């Protein structure tokens, strides 16, 4: 006899709620994207499609500098956090009962435990001292800060991939005259690669859209894309801002899509 299980999709109204949620999530974004292509410079009145705002944005040196900074920060922070996350994932799944597994857990869950604004203020206070002491005003501070909160996001897919991996493969490699390093290079790493790529892209996206930490840590005059947008918004809402937002959105979506594609095809 078939057992009747509770299935939430069979409850009345579920479909309606799902549709409303979907619309609430995506309609505003869609409107923004439409506005980015709107020839009129007052939002709400459609006067035909144009790429004018995108051209204006790309022509804007302040935007270009912010975009370059964002790219540098996201690339470096994603790379560093992926390397650290890979090491952490290997330590957690391979190191047998090493001391300090609890420590790794506390590190990895820092973004959950410590509210972002608290972390940002704390870091700001400390880094202000460092900036004064060293005189260094570069992007390094933002990169370090981003790296720390990106690690947990990079960690998750890597860890998932590692725990699904057959340990006898590494045993077999050692049996076939491979050293630990050779085994890592030719067996563990290639099998881990899809997880590492997914982790990297996740970290990249997380870094790309961060506002709170960036705006408190950056040195005067430095902007990333999100902090630049925040600054511009305070002055006035132009169609160029829609275009820049749309660009950020496209970047984010393509990276997430690429990551999804990579993890799906390279199982």
């Amino acid at each position, binding site marked *: 006899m078939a057992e009747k299980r509770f299935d939430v999709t069979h409850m009345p109204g579920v479909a309606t709620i799902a549709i409303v949620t979907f619309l609430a999530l995506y309609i505003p974004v869609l409107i923004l994207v439409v506005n980015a292509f709107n020839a009129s410079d007052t939002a709400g009145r459609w006067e035909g499609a144009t790429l004018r705002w995108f051209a204006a944005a790309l022509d804007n040196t302040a935007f270009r500098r912010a975009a370059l900074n964002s790219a540098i920060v996201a690339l470096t922070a994603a790379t560093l956090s992926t390397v650290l996350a890979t090491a952490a994932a290997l330590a957690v799944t391979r190191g047998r009962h090493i001391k300090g597994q609890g420590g790794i857990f506390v590190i990895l869950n820092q973004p959950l435990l410590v509210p972002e604004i608290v972390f940002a203020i704390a870091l700001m206070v400390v880094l202000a001292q460092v900036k004064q002491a060293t005189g260094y005003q570069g992007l390094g501070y933002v990169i370090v800060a981003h790296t720390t909160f990106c690690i947990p996001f990079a960690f998750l897919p890597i860890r998932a991939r590692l725990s699904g991996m057959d340990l*006898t493969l590494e*045993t077999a490699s*050692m*049996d076939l*005259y*491979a050293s630990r390093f050779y085994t890592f290079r*030719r067996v563990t790493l290639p099998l881990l690669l899809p997880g590492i790529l997914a982790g990297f892209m996740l970290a990249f996206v997380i870094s790309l859209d961060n506002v709170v930490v960036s705006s408190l840590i950056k040195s005067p005059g430095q902007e990333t894309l999100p902090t630049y947008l925040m600054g511009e918004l305070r002055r006035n809402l132009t169609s160029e801002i829609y275009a820049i937002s749309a660009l950020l959105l496209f970047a984010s979506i393509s990276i997430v899509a690429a990551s999804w594609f990579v993890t799906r095809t390279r199982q």
Partner: protein
Amino acid sequence: MLDIRSLSKKFGAGNSAFHALKSIDITIEEGEFFTLLGPSGCGKTTLLRMIAGFEQPSGGQLVLDGKDIAMIPPNNRPVNTVFQSYALFPHMTVAQNVAFGLEARGATPSEVAGRVDEMLEIVQMSHLRDRKSSQMSGGQQQRVALARALAPRPRILLLDEPLSALDLKLRKQMQVELKRLQREMGLTFIFVTHDQDEALTMSDRIAVMEGGTLQQVSDPRALYDHPANRFVAEFIGDANFLAGVIADAKLGMAGQPPVPLPRNEAANGPVTVMIRPEQVVVGPLAKDAITLNGRIETLVFSGNDTQASVRLQNGETLRLRAQNNLHAETTLTEGQRLQVSLPLDALRLLPQEAADAA
């Protein structure tokens, strides 16, 4: 060639320590097909993993070609393994898998290429050399695993239940192929199985293990014909155990007058008498046999023979196998009263164990 000397293995420490192997002594000869046979959990894999270097012995020595290898890491031992799950590298092709051990050892590309071709030829997998190893059947993966392990020319090949994942037909076929390969190439195999038929048909010698100890090491024939104890007799083949008493070189059993034994092998006192069901003869025998009366309780027809369970007069049960020959003189029916004979030379006297007394 390989001397296993008082090798033991404890997992854990203190009171919770588990003695997986207790002082194992075996000498394995060059070119031998040596099988470790025993029930699940008896320590077969543990012993194999110690020979491969994945476990450190807790005591004893492992001497290969005169050198103690117990402390040498697995990647420096001239010993390779065929894993039960095959453990082929899924991101590599068949040829890359076979090349792995040679490359890890630093062989030149031309050496590697030559040897890979040769090995793929031997296991008849040349046509699939560029196939990803994850896209193959169990039997094909098995061959690749074999080629990969043999490519670096190990002194000993370890095989941990390599055939257990295959279906019966393929398994029989691989048994034949494996045996042929081993014999033709003069390889030394240490083969683990818990399938007694597989062990009997393939091995030069078999070590029967139980609870981390060796019960008997012999060639298949001797193991079957002269089991050292009740465990071995029961684990390999089918066996009847009857109670007996030895007194002055005479064996008394089943309420019969004592008969003199051809060879006086046992000391006076109670013994367990073992006889294989196929050695029991229906009807009386003229000489050198103990003849008993009984009644057939159950009959099981199984194609080429019929198995009968006979209740003896003293209450003991005796199982026998009769060939289903059209021209056989007697036919058996359930409930039938009959005489059965136990030829003296088919009887094995086993030391009586605590469990038998009950």
